[in-house]
């Protein structure tokens, strides 16, 4: 370990370290995020920080005076999420120095994603950086690290073939729908949640021939806006339970804190058309659909982990490109780390 470590760190939990049930408990509610940020801002010794909060990641990037500061950060986070520190420690991701840079670069390039090579994560890292910048949590070190990381991620995506093939959750979900319904032209698709990932799924269904699309959202304006973009219908989410039986495919991608589709709601809907299959895609975290729904006859429930596992099977074709991308990221991260060290030594 360098004498400058651990001034730069990443700590958190991801799909690599925590199972789905725990990732649900670790999920950071968008409404509660500012309160956590304020708590962290008051931590002594935490010079800079940015929070990457996605379906599969709760990652805190920062610059700290000592390892003790990292411990304090974890304590604050656990108290905020009301979870045991020991449990969090067991599934914790913790990297410092060059390893932290390497990790952020790999995450931005999509190399650490559940669906290796997917593009959404790059936008999410940029959003996390922009949000931290807005609240002035980012200083010179994190600024440089993020900027250089974005350059490395762009280079990897343009110079390797890691993003080729079916590497988005949306495409995997639509492929899966064809194994249930065959031709999608007469399938009735409902999208619950007007977020980016749901929109991508809806567009993928539309591009594969699904003509009957409906968007439901907690905010009717959002639903109507997205429905207009997709040439779909809008539905208030309160009416979802009454209309469930109408749909063949339901894509759930809301930010609701708990399940919006219960076992009993799906059972009731299935009683109206018991012989017709129902495909449920749960892209939300915390999950929008109760897991026990999968036991109902003719209901096929897939969540993020399931779709990622299917995508993983397609990954072998891109193995060489992924290796090439990892080598590029490692070289760039090493170069940046040395650069930062020289700067730090010069300033001392």
């Amino acid at each position, binding site marked *: 370990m360098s004498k400058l470590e651990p001034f730069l760190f990443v700590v958190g939990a991801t799909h690599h370290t925590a199972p789905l049930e725990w990732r649900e408990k670790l999920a950071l509610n968008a409404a509660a995020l500012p309160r956590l940020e304020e708590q962290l801002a008051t931590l002594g010794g935490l010079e800079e920080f940015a929070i990457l909060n996605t379906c599969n990641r709760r990652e805190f990037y920062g610059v700290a005076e000592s390892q003790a500061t990292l411990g304090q950060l974890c304590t604050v986070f656990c108290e905020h999420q009301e979870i045991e520190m020991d449990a969090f420690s067991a599934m914790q991701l913790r990297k410092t120095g060059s390893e932290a840079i390497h990790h952020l670069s790999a995450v931005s390039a999509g190399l650490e994603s559940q669906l290796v090579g997917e593009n959404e994560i790059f936008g999410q890292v940029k959003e996390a950086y922009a949000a931290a910048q807005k609240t002035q949590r980012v200083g010179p070190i994190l600024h440089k690290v993020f900027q250089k990381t974005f350059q490395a991620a762009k280079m990897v995506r343009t110079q390797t073939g890691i993003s080729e093939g079916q590497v988005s959750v949306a495409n995997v979900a639509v492929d899966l729908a064809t194994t249930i319904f*065959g031709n999608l032209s007469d399938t009735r698709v409902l999208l619950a949640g007007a977020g980016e990932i749901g929109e991508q799924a809806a567009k993928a269904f539309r591009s594969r021939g699904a003509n009957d699309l409906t968007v439901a959202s907690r905010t009717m304006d959002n639903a109507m806006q997205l429905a207009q973009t997709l040439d779909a219908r809008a539905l208030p989410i309160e009416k979802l339970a009454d209309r469930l039986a109408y749909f063949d495919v339901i894509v759930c991608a809301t930010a609701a804190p708990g399940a919006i589709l219960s076992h009993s709601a799906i059972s009731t809907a299935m009683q109206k058309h018991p012989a017709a299959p129902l495909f449920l895609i749960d892209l939300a975290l915390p999950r929008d659909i109760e897991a026990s729904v999968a036991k109902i*006859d003719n209901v096929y429930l897939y969540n993020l982990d399931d779709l990622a596992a*299917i995508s993983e099977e397609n990954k072998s074709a891109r193995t060489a490109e992924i290796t090439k991308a990892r080598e590029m990221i490692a070289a760039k991260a090493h170069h940046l780390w040395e650069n930062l060290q020289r700067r730090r030594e010069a300033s001392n």
Partner: protein
Amino acid sequence: MTDRTWIWIAAACYLVGVVIGTVALLRHRKQPAGTLYLFVAIGFALQTVGLYIRGLEVGGCPLGNTFELFQFTAWSATALYLVVGVTFRLSLLGYFTSLLSLVLSAVSLSVPAWDATRRSDVFGGNVWIEFHAALALFSYGVFALLALTSIMFLLRNYSLKNKQLSGAFAFLPSIRDLDTISVRLLNVGVMLLSASMLVGSAYWIRAIDTVNLSKLLITVAIWIAYGGAFILRRQGKLYGKNLAWICIGLFIAALISVYPVNLSRRGDEPPPVPFVQP
């Protein structure tokens, strides 16, 4: 060449289909639909020749012993596949049909006792009874194909429920297509069997004393069972994997019943002529 020789060659064609399909499955490759279809079609043509020669020999539709009943069932299922397989582009169904026809042909050919006696003029020159028997056996062929699509439905359902979509599972048709085909086959099978029962009953009513009670009870039981499945499916009370299991179970029961039904007929008819190889 004798009728049995033609049928042996037909079975060899089905065997080639099974080998080609198995190799494709083991290599996780898509079934070579065209090649499979070709071998099934050649097998069907050769089997038709064999059954035609047998028909000329016995002076009617060859439905006089267990061997002939098995052959006619396999022939009916294959004939239907040649139509359904093209309509629905079901390459994997070709593999299963080859397998079923091979098993039925091989089993019936390898049990000499089933073909030891051949009945000439089994239906006493009554074309309606012959039509009744042919319709009933043809419906068994439909139910054979229904059992195959039901097996495919169960495999697809298992793969979707357990998230195992690669390998051989990747080549199964969609579960909705399989359900559609199965329901259509059930409808057609029940209609054919009902028509057969109607034709048969018209004869029985006029000559009730000639009715073989065991045969009648077994046939009516199978008709009621399939009819029940048909009604429950239409009412939405029987569907999905439960329907698939029932269709498989009913076909096995129907196939098993062929032997006792054929055995029970012996007491009602004049002694058959033992077959001597020319």
